[in-house]
C-alpha cells in the first residue's frame, strides 16, 4: 500500500528565476524564508514519488493535439527547455512508470480518459518550485498536466474529482511507496491580456480563506465565479484545488503570500496538514 505523506502548493512565476533580485533585498529575504519553510515540510515528508500537478506552458503541447488532462507515465522526463533555466540542475528527471500507469488505469476505471505521455519536458512550472526549495536530487516525478492555458478547460468540479482519483490511486497502489503531491501555479495573474501584470490581492485573500475553510462545494462555487475575472493565469488555481481534493479538503495551511508586482504573480505557498500521521 502506498501512502500519501504530504501535499504542497507553490507558485511558479518565471520571474522568480529571471529577476529574483528585482524585488529588493527585504522581499527576497521574506520569500526565501517561505521557500525554506516549504522545503523543510517537504523534506520532512520524505516522498519516494512526487505527483506534480502543473500546466504545460506551450512546451510539449500545441493546439494540434491539446490535452485537457495528461499523465506523464515515462521512465524519465527531460528538464526544462526554457533558455533562461539553463542553470537549474535538472537535465533528466526520473519518472515512476509503475505508479503512473496505476494512476492511468485507475482513471480509465473511474470515468477519466487522460492523454498519456511517455516522454516530455518539464517546464518552469515544474522546476522553479523544486529548484527554489533546493530539492536536489528530485524524487521520482509523476506529472499531472491540467490544461490551464487555453479554453475550454476542465471545470473546477472535475478537478475535485480528479484530486479524489489521485488519492484513490495512491491508496490502492500495491506497493510500499511514500507519495507526495505538489500543485504549482497561481495565484492571481494575467499574461498576454489587457490586464497583464495585474495582481488581484482581494481574490487571492478570499481564495486562501476558502481553502482554509475546507468546504469544497463552496470553494468550487467561489472559483466558478471569481477565478476567470482574476486574470487568465489564475486558471492555475485548478491545480491547488486538485491537490486540496486529494487531501480530503481539510488542513490547508498558508506558508507565505508574496504579491510582488515586479513578478506579475500573486505568489502563494502552502501545505496541507494530513489527518493521518505520516510515519
Amino acid at each position: 500500500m502506498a501512502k500519501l505523506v504530504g501535499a504542497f502548493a507553490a507558485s511558479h512565476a518565471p520571474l522568480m528565476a529571471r529577476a529574483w533580485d528585482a524585488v529588493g533585498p527585504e522581499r527576497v529575504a521574506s520569500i526565501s524564508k517561505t521557500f525554506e519553510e516549504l522545503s523543510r515540510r517537504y523534506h520532512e515528508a520524505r516522498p519516494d514519488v512526487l505527483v506534480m500537478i502543473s500546466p504545460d506552458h506551450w512546451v510539449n503541447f500545441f493546439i494540434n493535439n491539446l490535452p485537457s488532462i495528461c499523465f506523464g507515465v515515462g521512465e524519465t522526463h527531460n528538464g526544462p527547455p526554457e533558455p533562461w533555466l539553463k542553470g537549474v540542475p535538472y537535465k533528466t528527471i526520473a519518472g515512476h512508470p509503475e505508479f503512473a500507469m496505476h494512476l492511468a488505469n485507475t482513471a480509465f476505471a473511474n470515468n477519466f480518459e487522460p492523454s498519456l505521455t511517455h516522454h516530455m519536458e518539464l517546464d518552469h512550472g515544474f522546476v522553479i518550485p523544486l529548484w527554489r526549495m533546493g530539492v536536489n536530487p528530485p524524487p521520482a516525478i509523476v506529472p499531472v498536466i491540467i490544461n490551464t492555458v487555453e479554453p475550454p478547460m476542465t471545470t473546477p468540479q472535475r478537478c475535485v474529482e480528479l484530486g479524489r482519483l489521485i488519492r484513490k490511486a495512491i491508496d490502492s497502489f500495491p506497493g510500499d511507496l511514500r507519495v507526495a503531491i505538489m500543485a504549482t501555479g497561481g495565484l492571481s495573474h494575467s499574461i498576454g491580456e489587457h490586464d497583464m501584470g495585474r495582481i488581484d490581492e482581494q481574490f487571492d485573500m478570499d481564495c486562501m480563506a476558502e481553502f482554509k475553510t475546507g468546504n469544497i462545494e463552496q470553494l468550487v462555487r467561489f472559483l466558478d465565479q471569481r477565478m476567470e475575472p482574476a486574470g487568465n493565469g489564475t486558471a492555475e488555481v485548478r491545480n491547488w484545488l486538485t491537490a486540496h481534493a486529494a487531501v480530503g479538503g481539510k488542513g490547508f495551511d498558508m506558508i507565505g503570500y508574496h504579491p510582488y508586482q515586479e513578478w506579475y504573480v500573486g505568489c502563494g505557498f502552502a501545505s496541507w496538514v494530513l489527518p493521518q500521521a505520516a510515519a
Partner: protein
Amino acid sequence: MRDYWLSKLMFDLQQPAAAEEFKANREAVLARYPLKPEVRAAVDADDVTTLAKLVNPYLIRFYFFAVGRNEAWFLERIRKTGPAASNAANKEAAHG
C-alpha cells in the same frame, strides 16, 4: 476561434534558432505558414489588437518577445485590447 497557422508560427518561434531565422529572413519563414491575407497584414503591421483576437495570450506574448519587442512596447499595446479576447472560445461554456 484560434487562427491555426498564426498560432503555429508563434509556437514555433519559441525556439531560439527559429526566432533568429525569422529576424534574419522574415519572408522565407512566413512563406512556410499559409496565413490568410488579413492575418499576414496584421503580422506585418505588428497589430497587437488584431493578433490578440486570433491566438492564445501566452503565445502572443512569446511572439513579440521573440521578434525583439521589449516588454514596455508590448504592455502598452496589449493593455489597449479589450477583456476576454482569450476567452472567446470558451464563451459558450461560460454562459452554458
